[in-house]
């Protein structure tokens, strides 16, 4: 083959690959486009056949309908509150316990750590029933704290932080001790700054995990003003079963903020989720 012919083959191979990758990209993105377009269509256009992708006369009535029956703003605040408090608690408990398990020796330490590690693998759904009974005994049904309680510690977080803090040299901690720093000061001044990347990965993982929970809010919360966005949308779709206009509008309301956050912080989010995904 001449150089020119070889280059031609390479170019056509490359464009074939690009076309293939674009088709795959459409497969991943199209559902969101379809949802957004449906949300902007009047009912007659939604149920047209053959379907038209883009609305001819875009309207916002579907969004107004959604907000009339479901306070998604409130759901949002609830989700942010529940996920935020849980994440904060997970970060604090994980780094404290991680520090102690990594650097301080005491009787029964390894056994305690293995107990925690053993529960990391078990999904919450598998002991949901008992969880419900415990929270109900404590009077936590239909309360915010009952909603948050299961997410206040994360075994995996303790494991991740222990691994990370383990690699901090002992000399650094000893030097601080000689300078008269208390354990708490060491934790705040030495351990936390050196665990920043693990903590931010854990924060992203914890926040998205708690945000996406459906089954626990579903069983524990019954009044609308405590619904999270996930539960709110689940309840909404039970009411507007085949009204795809309002239904799509509600889905758009739930998706857009997450999408915006992802576009802004995609590097950190992908890194955080991959790091936690590979270490778990």
């Amino acid at each position, binding site marked *: 083959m001449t150089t020119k012919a070889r280059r031609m083959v390479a170019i056509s191979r490359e464009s074939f690959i690009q076309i*293939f*990758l674009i088709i*795959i990209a459409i*497969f*991943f*993105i199209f*559902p969101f486009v379809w*949802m957004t377009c449906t949300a902007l269509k009047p009912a007659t256009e939604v149920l047209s*056949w*053959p*379907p038209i992708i883009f609305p001819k006369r875009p309207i916002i009535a579907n969004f107004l309908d959604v907000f009339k029956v479901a306070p998604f703003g409130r759901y949002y605040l609830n989700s942010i509150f529940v996920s935020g408090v849980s994440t904060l608690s997970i970060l604090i408990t994980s780094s*404290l*316990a991680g520090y*102690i398990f990594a650097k301080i020796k*005491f009787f029964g330490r390894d056994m305690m750590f293995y107990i*925690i590690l053993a*529960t990391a*693998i*078990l*999904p919450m*759904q*598998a*002991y*949901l*029933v*008992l*969880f*419900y*009974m*415990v929270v109900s005994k404590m009077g936590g049904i239909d309360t915010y704290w009952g909603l948050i309680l*299961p997410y*206040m*510690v994360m*075994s995996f977080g303790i494991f991740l932080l222990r691994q990370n803090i383990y690699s901090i040299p002992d000399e650094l901690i000893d030097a601080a001790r000689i300078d008269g720093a208390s354990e708490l000061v060491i934790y705040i001044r030495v351990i936390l700054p050196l665990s920043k990347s693990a903590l931010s990965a854990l924060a992203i993982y914890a926040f*998205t995990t708690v*945000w*996406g929970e*459906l*089954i626990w809010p*579903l*069983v524990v919360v019954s009044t609308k003003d405590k619904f999270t*966005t*996930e539960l709110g949308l*689940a309840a909404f*779709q039970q009411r507007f*079963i*085949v009204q*795809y206009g309002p*239904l*799509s509008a509600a*889905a758009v309301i*739930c998706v857009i903020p*997450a*999408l915006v956050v*992802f576009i802004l912080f995609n590097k950190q989010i*992908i890194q955080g*989720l*991959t790091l936690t*995904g*590979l270490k778990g």
Partner: protein
Amino acid sequence: MCILIPVFTFFVIIRVFPILATLLLSFFDWGLVNPTRPFIGFKNYIDLFNDPLFVIALRNTGVLAFLSVIVTIAIAFGLALILNRRKAKFADIYKLIYFVPFVISWVPVSVIWKWIYDPTYGILNYVVSLVGISRQGWLVNPKLSLYSIIILIIWRSAGFNIILFSVGLKNIPSEYLEAGRIDGAGDISLFRHITLPLLKPIILYIFIMTSIINFSIFSPVFIMTTGPQGAQGNAVRVLVYDIYENAFRYLHMGYAAAESTILLILVIFLTLIAFKLIKQEA
């Protein structure tokens, strides 16, 4: 160190106790509203395996977990290879786009796909009609509904797995591939003798982890089974869905606890296999 005591106590209350109590409760005829809650030994377990709904749920969960993980790994691995080829153009943009479904939570994506799968007006029926396939009840038809949910699972998790595989591919020292190429190995034999063996631990890891997550799947099934255009409950009934119904609809807490114990045992079993395989690799 004293600070560990409250953390650990808390941990015992919200993790260790519920897990152990699940095992214990499974031996009782414990209804939430019953006045008496007698010890009944293994009766809950015997009843479970004679309960057609549980058997269906177990079977569906197995099919869903393993089929979706196998197809996801195949697709993600293939795409990761293409995106990490030499001199790949726009690879980062594609990876970003493929990742998007994974950052959106289950409920909205299930709502979107339910509309795509609609038996009369769904766009998927329009797309397949272009290639001459007649309208299908993707969710309504009990023969298809489980597979429709599997497609949704693959769609949502493929991008995440592409990134995991890309990390693995980047960690392969380029000297290995160079050396192989100098020895005259073609792309296929490089893949078989260098790339694949080096990525085996990651593949194993993803396989087990994703199976465990899929074993406790709930949200998409819950959303996809509501309404006349949704799937019939039994066609897509999975373990956690069945636990949810037994516990929170019929209030058979003991029975649901026995079912939860089976789920716990399955997950532990998968984990042990994972440890064993990974140890063998190391």
